[in-house]
């Protein structure tokens, strides 16, 4: 079974004259009603959280971190030693007090991240995870047969390349630092960041090669 590009079924569309609420929608509204009545959540704060994660935070943050690590050896050292502090200095602090560990790809060594329990992911650096990252197939298979799973993403690594799979938790999230593509000498961090894809920071892809 392929683990990516699977789209969950959309809710049914209704075309009646009056409104129908999807049962899940109604349950969420019920919860929100209770929580607001009890003063446990502020609807404006909920809206702000949704806006942040649906539209503002995304892989561009992680790409800026990777591009800086490629450009500044001292920053790369800091990122390797204490990623939480290094990315925090760039303004990317996890909202849940989680720590970040950066794992660096190298010739003959490739890292890939997963959350086998649920969907832990470095939100502050990559935004919310894609659908496939949350799928049971990816979560269970990438630890058992990473090479086969990566091949399904179109990433075929040499047999001699060692693969390391990192299982994220609520407290510790990982960021893969892909290898800097050849032919990018003299590029600015802004130019380099354009090559850093989300998949390359999860480990299911590589950084783009300059055209």
């Amino acid at each position, binding site marked *: 079974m392929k683990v*990516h*590009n*699977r*789209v*969950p079924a*959309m*809710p049914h569309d209704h075309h009646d*004259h*009056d*409104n*129908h*609420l*999807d*049962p*899940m*929608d*109604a*349950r*969420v*509204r*019920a*919860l*929100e*009603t*209770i*929580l607001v009545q*009890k003063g*446990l*959540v*502020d609807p404006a*704060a*909920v*809206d702000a*959280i*949704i806006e942040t*994660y*649906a539209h503002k935070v995304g892989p561009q943050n992680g790409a800026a971190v990777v591009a800086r690590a490629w450009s500044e050896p001292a920053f790369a050292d800091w990122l390797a030693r204490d990623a939480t502090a290094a990315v925090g200095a760039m303004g990317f602090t996890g*909202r*849940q*007090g*989680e720590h970040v560990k950066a794992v660096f790809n190298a010739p003959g060594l490739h890292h890939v991240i997963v959350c086998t*329990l*649920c*969907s*832990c992911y470095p939100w502050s650096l990559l*935004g*919310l*995870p*894609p*659908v*496939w990252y*949350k*799928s*049971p197939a990816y979560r269970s298979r990438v630890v058992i047969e990473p090479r086969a799973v990566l091949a399904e993403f179109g990433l075929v690594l040499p047999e001699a390349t060692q693969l390391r799979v990192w299982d994220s*938790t*609520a*407290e510790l999230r990982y960021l893969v630092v892909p290898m800097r593509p050849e032919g990018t000498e003299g590029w600015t961090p802004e130019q380099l960041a354009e090559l850093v894809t989300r998949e390359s920071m999860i480990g299911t892809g590589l950084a783009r090669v300059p055209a």
Partner: protein
Amino acid sequence: MSAPDQPFLAPWQAQVFGLTVALSEAGLFNWPDWTQALGAQLATGAEYWDAWLQALEVILTQKGVAVPDEIAALAHRWQDAAHATPHGQPILLENASG
């Protein structure tokens, strides 16, 4: 981005996500507790966002914030309100007959 990359495929998914993060930030539960609750629901084979909602209901029940019967009854009222609301107007709980 293409559709499969959207974090939310329906508004209620975004809403339940926002509620959960807001409650955690307000200190009702910590994130490790949340991931355990979510993982337990995902382990049943539920769809991701269905599992998320179920996990939140479990935690709120454990915390004594809401009981399942209350949630179900209120959800039913929201559906009543939707039926009673003309298309194109916002759905308000006050519109429910019950």
